């Protein structure tokens, strides 16, 4: 009917990328290409200790042996990546690290303001400590003092390597080892920075921790490395959000996030991902290959992944939970919106090892334009996971008849006392739904907005307040024209 056609039309004349501009800051760049020298250069730039360099080199040498083994099982099509045609290190030229916000390059602060991250205001109003990563070097960390007093460590990874080597050595690579997969191995070799968080025993972190990543320099792959450790009985909510400036060449992003959760601890990890998705014809856009994994090591430990994926030309991302401790639980809530020529292959893995472990997966995929979105998930129950429980629900919504929505779940059960349930549906916005909304006086765009927001509600409401608002906006922007 007409409304559907309108949706299709609206989706077709998509907006210009809202965050598409570039800040000119002279970069301290390493030469193009990847070699052992580059790995040494990055390590030297970061003034890293010997053990860190050794680890990087070990990963790099392994990566060299698998160079032709880039994973190809995902439902993604993209030209072969030339790893020698990219810069692996670029840092904003700031001289020495700034001691306060006043010393930060005003241009940089302007960029953040355009992005809607008022650092200063945030410090006072939002109660959010922001560790902002501009390209690869962390330039400002706020609220550090306050967190310090509580014993929370929240700092750039490069700083943690220097200041807290014992924690980094103990946990880095313990969830995602350097040999884990092609992209994770690459990340181990050349990661430049990221966040490090340690929450001490019994502490409920009083504020949401947040990092904004932003790719700025042309042709620089971003290789972030994040490690969060929640010690016994602690709790933390961590927010990650991304926007990137517009450019034509495809950019590689291969991040690794590791979460370690000990007895009775809980981590809530929320992501809003809005990297540049490429233009209407699929030109440009970020290639996003992310390895995210949480290890529920202790009894009653809990992890909750929430992601809103609206950006990137290519998304390859499977935030996972290893449910090792008895009674531990993992949850995964995801909204993936693809438009134009975007391709997303995303999902989760829930590996049940301990007794009475529980997992819940809610994945919503929305495909529009000529895009393809795939849910790919694994639920594995190992023989010792007595009484394990899994519930999975995947729903896909198709807008227009040129897109695709796919569901590829794997369920492997080796314990009879475990119960797994999986259900998936695919549908479009029905004429009845549209008619109902329109005869209540809504125009088709408002109606679609309402319906799509309702479709995602279950996931969006798991986001922290600050993010929920941004996420709702993003859902709108991603389907701009059709959603209010």
């Amino acid at each position, binding site marked *: 009917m007409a409304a559907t056609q309108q949706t299709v039309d609206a989706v077709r004349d998509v907006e210009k990328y809202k965050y598409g501009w570039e800040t000119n800051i002279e970069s301290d760049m390493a030469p193009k290409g990847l070699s052992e020298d580059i790995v040494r250069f990055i390590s030297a730039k970061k003034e890293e200790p010997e053990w860190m360099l050794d680890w990087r080199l070990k990963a790099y040498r392994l990566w060299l042996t698998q160079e032709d083994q880039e994973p190809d*099982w995902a439902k993604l099509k993209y030209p072969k990546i030339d790893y020698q045609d990219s810069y692996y290190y670029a840092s904003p030229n700031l001289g020495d690290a700034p001691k306060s916000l006043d010393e930060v390059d005003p241009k940089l602060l302007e960029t953040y303001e355009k992005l809607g991250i008022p650092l200063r205001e945030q410090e006072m109003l939002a109660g959010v400590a922001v560790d902002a990563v501009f390209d690869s070097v962390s330039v400002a960390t706020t609220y550090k003092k306050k967190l310090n007093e509580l014993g929370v460590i929240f700092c750039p990874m490069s700083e943690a390597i220097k200041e807290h080597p014992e924690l980094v050595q103990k946990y880095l690579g313990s969830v995602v080892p350097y040999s884990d997969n092609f992209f994770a191995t690459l990340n181990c070799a050349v990661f430049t920075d990221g966040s490090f968080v340690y929450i001490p025993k019994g502490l409920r972190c009083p504020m949401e921790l947040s990092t904004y990543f932003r790719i700025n320099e042309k042709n620089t792959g971003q290789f972030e490395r994040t490690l969060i450790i929640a010690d016994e009985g602690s709790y933390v909510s961590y927010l990650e959000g991304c926007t990137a400036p517009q450019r034509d060449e495809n950019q590689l992003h291969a991040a690794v996030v590791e979460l370690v959760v000990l007895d009775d601890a809980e981590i809530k990890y929320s992501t809003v991902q809005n990297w540049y998705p490429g233009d209407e014809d699929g030109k440009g856009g970020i290639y996003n290959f992310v390895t995210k994994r949480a290890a529920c090591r202790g009894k009653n430990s809990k992890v909750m992944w929430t992601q809103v994926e609206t950006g990137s030309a290519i998304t390859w991302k499977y935030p996972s939970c290893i449910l090792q401790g008895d009674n531990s639980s993992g949850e995964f809530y995801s909204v993936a919106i693809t438009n134009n020529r975007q391709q997303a292959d995303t999902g989760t893995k829930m590996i049940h090892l301990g007794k009475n472990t529980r997992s819940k997966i809610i994945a919503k995929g929305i495909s529009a334009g000529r895009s393809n979105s795939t849910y790919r998930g694994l639920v594995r*129950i190992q*023989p010792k996971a007595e009484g394990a429980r899994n519930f999975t629900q995947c729903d*896909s919504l*198709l*807008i*227009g*008849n*040129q*897109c*695709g*929505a*796919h*569901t*590829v*779940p*794997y*369920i*492997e*059960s*080796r*314990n*009879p*006392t*475990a*119960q*797994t*349930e*999986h*259900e*998936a*549906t*695919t*549908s*479009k916005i029905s004429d009845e739904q549209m008619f109902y909304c329109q005869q209540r006086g809504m125009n088709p765009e408002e109606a679609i907005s309402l319906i799509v927001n309702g479709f995602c509600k279950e996931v969006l409401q798991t986001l922290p307040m600050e993010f929920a608002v941004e996420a709702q906006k993003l859902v709108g922007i991603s389907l701009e024209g059709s959603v209010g």
Partner: protein
Amino acid sequence: MTAVKTITATAFGDTYANAVGALPGANESWIDGLRKTSRALLGTQGVPGPKTEAWKYTSLNQIAKTPFIPASTADDVDVPLLPVTVPLLDGALKIVFVNGVYRSDLSDKLEDLGAGITLSPFADVLKSSPGSLKDVLGAVMEPAQSFTAAMNTGFMEQGTVLHLSNGAKLEQPIQILSIGASGSSPGAFHPRFEIVLEEGAQATVVECHVGLPGQAYLSNAATEIILGERAALRHYTIVSEDSDAFHLGRTAVSVEQNAQYESFVLSLGGHLVRREVQVRLEGDGAATTVDGAYGLSGNQHSDVFSEILHLAPDTESKQTVKGVLGGDSRGVFQGRIHVARTAQRTDGRQLHKALLLNRGPEVDCKPELEIYADDVQCAHGATTGEMNPEHIFYLLSRGIDEKTARALLVEGFLDDVILNVADEPVRNLILDLVKTWLARQRILSIGEL
């Protein structure tokens, strides 16, 4: 990439091909070409290993390592009579194969089936009128799509061709019995069944794959089905192979406009059983039901692999597969529903449920949706788990002892899907086979209480 190098180097190599010798239809270049292409595929692709997605959960190592001989060449096998263990469908027309060889002495007469209906041995057709198969053979059963299909096509020798002309209705169901029996060496056979129903034709076909105890054998059966407009086929497959046997079977179906394909696969016996089915809904309004049930014990391995392709508008598919797993068995379900861009208003439903009876079995399940059209209603579901203790408690509280309660629940679990079988005599036969199986598993059946 694969665990095993190539099959031509081991199990089905030149030695095997030489032993098979000249096959019927070899003087027809297109048939010869089809076989050669298929054998070449086996050679180039080798045995699929765990990295081949379609074979992720089923290992062919044991088959690749077994030095099979062509079963028809074994001189130490004698099956003079129909074994008593063979499930027979009352009133059906029997056509019997032993080790892939047509046995006219054990089969019913294949004449006078009605106007426009012919049922002939495959080898006879290949020899006398190969041209009649030109648009049929290999039209749906594409060797490149499946290892199972390639192996069958490469070595196909005997089987049946069932043909129904426009509007013909087959009153009597046809029962194809394929019996495997090995002598001192493990044998392999590759029966081929071709079923063509022209416009508006109707038929019921029951395929039974059974075997005799002894050496392992490999039954590599393939059934190719073409259904014209408004044709309707009920096709039931019963796999009850010997406990040491391997079974790799595939059914490929093309369903034209408003035609209907109803199928049910019961899999109870065999050491390793893989049943593949591909249904192509080619015409508007084509519909299919692809149900199944399996029961596993000991170290049995069963793999249900299904692809339902919605290629035209207003097509409908329904699939329910239920499995009961005991011992240290392993059950695999891989089901894909594909909806093409043009297949608007598709309705696709898929459900797999596995019941684990004890500690030991493993169930792996991959229901997959691949959808390129927007105006569709597609859903799938999958569950695994043990018997609900509350259900047992309910029955206990009604004065039923625990063993009986469990039996009731297992039988009820399977009967639920078996009752979908539209043909009553076949339904009763399947229910009986399940009862016998349950009794053998020491799970009493309701009838014996």
